[in-house]
């Protein structure tokens, strides 16, 4: 398993090939469309993280010393971004997740999606992922 920063760097490299926002977003949308990220049965209020605009569902599972994440969103652009977050954080060790510096988001020009005013649930989702990383499997946000 490559480490968190290796995966981030890989994503940054992928994105450097795009010349404009359209190509970038088409790529994100494709990622959002292609992956079934969570079993439908977990898309319940127990796993929901409510943004004001789009919803996110997140489930974490411990597997040995690793944490796997499953997530989804009702908005496809949000889902595309989630799939990148999962790529980076899923399967990593808890302490690495908790301490991860997710610089790739800014580097690929998607920082605006993490602004609280976008209210898409992503900020809360990252918080929740890190929280799981800390080993506290309780839900802190909704």
């Amino acid at each position, binding site marked *: 398993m490559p480490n968190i920063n290796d995966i981030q760097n890989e994503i940054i490299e992928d994105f450097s090939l795009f010349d404009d926002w359209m190509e970038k977003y088409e790529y994100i*949308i494709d990622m959002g469309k292609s992956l079934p990220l969570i079993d439908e049965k977990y898309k319940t209020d127990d796993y929901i993280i409510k943004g004001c*605009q789009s919803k996110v569902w997140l489930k974490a599972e411990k597997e040995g010393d690793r944490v796997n994440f499953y997530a989804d969103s009702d*908005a496809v652009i949000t889902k595309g971004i989630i799939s990148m977050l999962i790529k980076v954080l899923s399967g990593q060790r808890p302490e690495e997740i908790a301490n991860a510096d997710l610089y790739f988001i800014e580097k690929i020009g998607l920082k605006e999606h993490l602004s609280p005013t976008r209210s898409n649930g992503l900020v809360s989702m990252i918080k929740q992922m890190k929280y799981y990383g800390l080993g506290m499997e309780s839900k802190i946000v909704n």
Partner: protein
Amino acid sequence: MPAILKENSAIKFRAVREARGDFPILSTQMNGRPLVFLDSAASSQKPQFVIDAIDKYYREQNANVHRGVYSLSQLATDLFEQSREKVRAFINGQYSREVIFVRGATEGINLVAQSYGRKFFKPGGTIILSQLEHHSNIVPWQMIAEEKGLEIKVIPINKEGELQLDTFEQMLSEKVQMVAVNHISNALGTVNPVKEIVEMAHRFDVPVLIDGAQATLHGSIDVQEIGADFYVFSGHKMFGPTGIGVLWGKEELLNKMPPWHGGGEMIKTVSFEKTTFNELPFKFEAGTPNICGSIGLGAAVDYFSQFDPKEVVAYEKELLAYCTSGLEEVGGIRFVGTAKNKTSVVSFLLEGTHPYDVGIILDKLGIAVRTGHHCTQPLMDHYGIPGTIRASMAMYNNKEDIDRLIEGVRRAKMMLG
């Protein structure tokens, strides 16, 4: 028609099409493209005329009001009170003392709920709202209803997003203690038959508050003709600054209501044993008011009066029709809210997509629309949707704006479809 226009019926109006040039922000860019601003229902842009009034106030006229003996304070006070009078004329109120300056529609509603409600609401009574309400016209009533033991009932809507008045009629009884509905729905653009609603409620002596937040942008208001007991609106939604709005109320009712906030300005005499309160409107304006905001709002009223309200409405209707038919041509559009009587608001969904995704793509194209639930979650739940994409137009918009929107929606459809 507001008295201000009746009195000035001889004046020559400017053409509505000239308005666009008055709004500096409309020649700026967003994401590297000329800004297309279609979110006026959330907050309107400001004409240079209003910006200048604000600028001039702080440069040449600023002082606290109602307290200085010096001329500058007198000047500020005069301007402040002139604004009150301008607002009175704009809504055709009877007396300017019935115009209470507040922060906005939200604060106006809270004031009535907390002052009128606390004094007059009786346990076991009912407050009637509608399915169309903005959270601002729901939550303040829930708060007082909980405190005083009242029940909230909701006027239903039909598929088109129109209030069902026959049901409303059946809901009315002596138990009802307040009816609060909006004049125009922010999420759908439905224009509600407020005059009829007031008449029906008054048959049972039930007071009516009209939330006019969305109405003042589109044309003239006549509170006396509507006959409501309270009417609230926000300056920022009618070309004025943020942080200023109006609660208009019938003098008789306002006089019976206790003050809400305490402080300076709202008192006559203060001692530790007993304080006596000032008269209207000051009784409800504790502390230093938003002087500059009021003056800006007065300027917005003056700006409005440069245009013929009939022409404004006709022009906006033209934009609405153009936008609606343009979107129809895109295909896969579901319109939410298709009332017969509607302002220039188009709320829609693009089949198979989430409003948020469409909003993001439009933003990249320099097009500002609102996506989401528009602070009307009960309404969205009623339709069983997470939200809509809402394009709301004001008189400064033009057909090119709509063309850009349609092109943007086509692009979103292509990318997301």
